[in-house]
């Protein structure tokens, strides 16, 4: 589809909210409220309209490609290359590319559609808010980030959106950051998400390493065509020779578990769900949009997006399903007893997200995603309804249902939409939740071969979900009956201080219906809560939905009998009716049973009131540990780094500076004294005689000497080192001397060049009778004549040269090998080869230079002179030497 002109508009879907966010963020403070919400609402509305047009186009493509199952109907637009990675000629390009297929198309419509309604609602709900522009800038930025998340064609681009929505979530939870508790809730959300993001990054790179691409389409194709590569054990290190192998953990399992860790953070599952209930600190429209309808479902979206990979990892699927089911139960049980509207809805969201994860974990990707879609309508409607109630009674984020009641007659629209949504979430027949919840139950019933390693898993999850569904129906209708039926119980008590700003004017009046900006979105969402299911379902099953999503999702063989859908539906209906009826009996009729139950199980009740005390558990375990770590690190820094290391260094510097600053004391006479002393020392050094002889290379036995010149120096030389000077004092520093043989024989020197590479010649001056010590290492590897005889040669000096007894060593004179162990004598100027080493015999003299200055002081120095000069060479390179490679 590249190059298709219309696909460019995909970019515009993202761009409109982004520009809206920029305009409101930069200029909103100066602009009026009308301009701010015009920009905010219009940008999302434009995105929604374009998304609708694109979706219509997608439907056309989809119908066209139905006959050909290979072709996946997508609209895509490659905006530009973001960056590319190259590794040894292999280049991995990461473009900014937007793709709308069946999956992301539905998500885009939900985000822009529900986002638009919530933007409109917010213009009413937030009308008294001082930071009006900031709110809408964040909300638009969130919409743009969420659209990048779903439309991004690759994991990195999705991750940009993933982080973007996390940021906006943080900003909006802490929107009223003057309140310390709210700011804390924002931080908690951010930190919990950060843990998950770490998993996403690891999973992303693991997948890219195995599949060779970051693009979803490539990864999914790879998973379908090269499944064995993904189902092999995780191995770290170079291909073929890994240094670490994890047997039993496949690449698919590892990567999907990492990704799922990210999903538990973003989509509020165990163990990272704790931030979502606190996230209700944000304004209610934010709770509706971000923390119910869109952002928190992105984990399910990610799993569906990569469903072919997840399908290869049954163990991960089991973990997902179990996590989802347990979270569903946990959320539902807490929801049973809470009294705050938003708390109940928050735990309900945690619970419903658990249902979705249980579904995708059981391989029912379509069912899980269907619930994402229907849940978006009714949960957004419930939250907005709750917001409307709080607006009406003047509560700010903490409406206690025990103080409400009878709101039906004060706010009819809110009441009707709330009732419809409650029916939908309870799974009442004919409402949207009914279809999706039944499909989830059916998915848990028909896991087929997926959990062949644990056959009990499917039925267990089914049981937990059934229980969860029953409780859902119960707590939702408890909420409904207590809020809207009976008599109004006076509303929340007000403190004098109300930072929301519009509490007082309502406090002493009866509740009233909210303005049209709020009720119209409620009505539309309520209508969606009924009708959203019908678009996609047939009778008792949702064939059209499955068919629509089929190209985008992995196919898992669902084996169920013809009766299974009806069994699922039966259980679903039972859960719904039992829950609603119990709530009706307990709270509409005003039964004493809840109080009795509470009295009968006080500890269980307080445990549920305290939300299973998970926060407290984290407080003492993880937070306690990290506080200990912080305490330890701070102490280490304070006492070891600052105390010991810094203190020692500073004391050292202090001592040095104390000594040196004595010289820089600012006293002129002290400087003068130092200068005088320095001048004296320098003068003494310059005037004192320094004999520094040098010589040119000898020509035969003729040597030219020279000496360094000095102030008023005269020189004399003792060439043969016999103690008597051979020249008179002369102003000429140069001299030369022709040595006679007799002069040379004053010393014998063995110059030994070892075989080891890089060893320089070693000069040993030997007195007659003295022995030259050699080692095997000096002689090189092939020094022995006979492998058995490893006695080293003996080299002893006499008056005219050296005497060599070869013993076991290979000794050569010139290029001829000495036969046998025969003593030989080397005279001055001769040389022999022992093993790979070279031995030269040469004479040495110790000439002496004497220097005198103008004051008559004398200085003298002796030095070594080796004659005749030794020609250095590499012995191993001598051709024709037996046993030595040339």
């Amino acid at each position, binding site marked *: 589809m590249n190059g298709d002109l219309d696909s460019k508009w995909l970019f515009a879907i993202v761009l409109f909210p982004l520009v809206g966010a920029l305009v409101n963020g930069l200029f909103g403070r100066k602009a009026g409220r009308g301009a701010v919400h015009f920009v905010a609402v219009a940008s999302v509305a434009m995105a929604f309209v374009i998304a609708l047009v694109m979706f219509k186009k997608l439907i056309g493509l989809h119908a066209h490609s139905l006959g050909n199952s290979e072709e996946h109907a997508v609209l895509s637009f490659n905006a530009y290359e973001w960056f590319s990675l190259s590794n040894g000629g292999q280049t991995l390009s990461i473009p900014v590319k937007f793709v709308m297929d069946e999956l992301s198309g539905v998500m885009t419509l939900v985000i822009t559609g529900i986002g638009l309604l919530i933007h409109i609602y917010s213009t009413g709900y937030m009308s008294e808010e001082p930071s009006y522009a900031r709110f809408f800038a964040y909300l638009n930025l969130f919409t743009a980030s969420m659209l990048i998340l779903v439309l991004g064609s690759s994991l990195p681009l999705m991750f940009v959106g993933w982080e973007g929505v996390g940021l906006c979530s943080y900003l909006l939870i802490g929107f009223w950051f003057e309140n310390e508790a709210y700011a804390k809730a924002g931080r908690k959300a951010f930190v919990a998400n950060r843990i998950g993001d770490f998993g996403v990054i690891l999973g992303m790179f693991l997948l890219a390493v195995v599949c060779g691409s970051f693009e979803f389409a490539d990864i999914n194709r790879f998973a379908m065509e090269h499944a064995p590569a993904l189902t092999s054990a995780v191995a770290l290190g170079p291909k073929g020779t890994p240094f670490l192998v994890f047997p039993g953990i496949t690449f698919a399992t590892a990567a999907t578990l990492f990704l799922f860790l990210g999903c538990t953070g973003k989509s509020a599952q165990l163990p990272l769900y704790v931030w979502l209930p606190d996230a209700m600190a944000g304004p209610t429209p934010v709770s509706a949009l971000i923390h119910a309808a869109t952002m928190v479902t992105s984990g399910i979206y990610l799993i569906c997006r990569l469903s072919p990979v997840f399908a290869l990892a049954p163990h991960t699927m089991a973990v997902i399903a179990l996590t989802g089911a347990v979270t569903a139960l946990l959320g539902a049980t807490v929801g049973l007893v809470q009294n705050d509207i938003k708390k109940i809805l928050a735990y309900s969201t945690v619970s419903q997200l658990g249902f979705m994860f249980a579904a995708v974990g059981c391989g029912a990707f379509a069912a899980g995603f269907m619930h994402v879609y229907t849940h978006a309508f009714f949960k957004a409607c419930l939250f907005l309804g709750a917001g409307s109630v709080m607006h009406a009674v003047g509560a700010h984020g903490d409406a206690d249902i025990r103080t409400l009641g009878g709101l039906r007659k004060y706010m009819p629209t809110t009441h009707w939409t709330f009732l419809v949504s409650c029916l939908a979430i309870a799974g009442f027949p004919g409402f949207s939740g009914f279809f999706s919840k039944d499909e989830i139950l059916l998915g848990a019933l028909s896991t087929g071969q997926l959990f062949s390693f644990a056959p009990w898993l499917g039925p267990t999850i089914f049981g937990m979900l059934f229980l969860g569904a029953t409780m859902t129906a119960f707590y939702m209708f408890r909420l409904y009956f207590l809020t809207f039926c009976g008599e109004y119980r006076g509303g929340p008590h007000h403190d004098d201080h109300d930072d929301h700003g519009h509490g007082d004017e309502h406090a002493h009046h009866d509740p009233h219906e909210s303005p049209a900006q709020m009720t119209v979105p409620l009505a539309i969402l309520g209508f969606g809560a009924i009708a959203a299911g019908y678009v996609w379902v047939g009778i008792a099953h949702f064939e059209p939905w499955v068919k629509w999503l089929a190209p985008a999702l992995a196919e898992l063989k669902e084996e169920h009998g013809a009766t299974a859908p009806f069994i699922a539906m039966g259980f679903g209906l039972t859960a719904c009716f039992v829950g609603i009826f119990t709530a009706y009996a307990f709270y509409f009729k005003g039964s004493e049973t809840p109080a009795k139950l509470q009295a009968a199980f006080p500890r269980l009740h307080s445990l549920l009131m305290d939300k299973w005390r998970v926060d407290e558990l984290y407080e003492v375990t993880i937070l306690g540990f990290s506080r200990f770590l912080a305490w330890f690190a701070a102490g280490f820094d304070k006492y070891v780094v600052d105390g010991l290391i810094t203190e020692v260094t500073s004391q050292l510097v202090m001592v040095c500076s104390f000594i040196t600053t004595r010289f820089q004391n*600012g*006293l002129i*006479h002290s400087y003068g004294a130092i200068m005088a002393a320095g001048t004296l020392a320098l003068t003494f050094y310059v005037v004192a005689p320094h004999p520094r002889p040098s010589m040119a290379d000898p020509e035969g036995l003729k040597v030219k000497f020279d000496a360094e010149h000095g102030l008023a120096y005269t020189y004399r030389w003792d060439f043969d080192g016999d103690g008597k000077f051979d020249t008179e004092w002369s102003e000429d520093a140069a001299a030369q001397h022709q040595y006679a043989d007799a002069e040379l024989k004053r010393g014998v020197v063995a110059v030994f060049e070892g075989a080891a590479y890089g060893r320089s010649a070693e000069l040993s001056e030997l007195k007659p009778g003295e022995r030259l010590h050699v080692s095997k290492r000096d002689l090189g590897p092939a020094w022995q004549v006979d492998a058995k005889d490893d006695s080293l040669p003996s080299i002893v000096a006499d008056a005219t040269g050296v005497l060599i007894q070869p013993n076991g060593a290979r000794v050569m004179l010139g290029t001829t090998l000495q036969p046998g162990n025969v003593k030989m004598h080397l005279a001055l100027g001769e040389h022999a080869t022992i093993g790979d080493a070279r031995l030269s015999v040469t004479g040495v003299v110790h000439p002496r230079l004497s220097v005198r200055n103008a004051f008559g002081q004398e200085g003298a120095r002796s030095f070594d002179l080796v004659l005749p000069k030794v020609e250095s060479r590499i012995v191993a390179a001598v051709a024709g030497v037996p046993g030595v490679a040339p």
Partner: protein
Amino acid sequence: MQIELGHFLALSATIFGIGAIGFLVRRNVLVQLMSIELMLNSVNLTFVAFNRYAPQNHLGQLFAFFVIAVAAAEAAVGLAIVLSFFRLRKTVHSDRADTLKN
């Protein structure tokens, strides 16, 4: 007794030594300046003495004039500094010239 070059040099070295020691041990800036003058003049004495024994182009006398000019300039600058130092500290004690210390 014939007066030789050595006598001139010995006198010059003595004067130079008196100047140097005076410069190092006295704390009165004016005395220190005078000590500097002493050292400069001892050098002048060696110059003219050398000139007497090597009078070819009177280099020694030439250099002595140079030194006298430099000494005059030095005295002018030095006295100006001493004057402003005195205005600042109401003393000419060189130990008190420690504004840059620490």
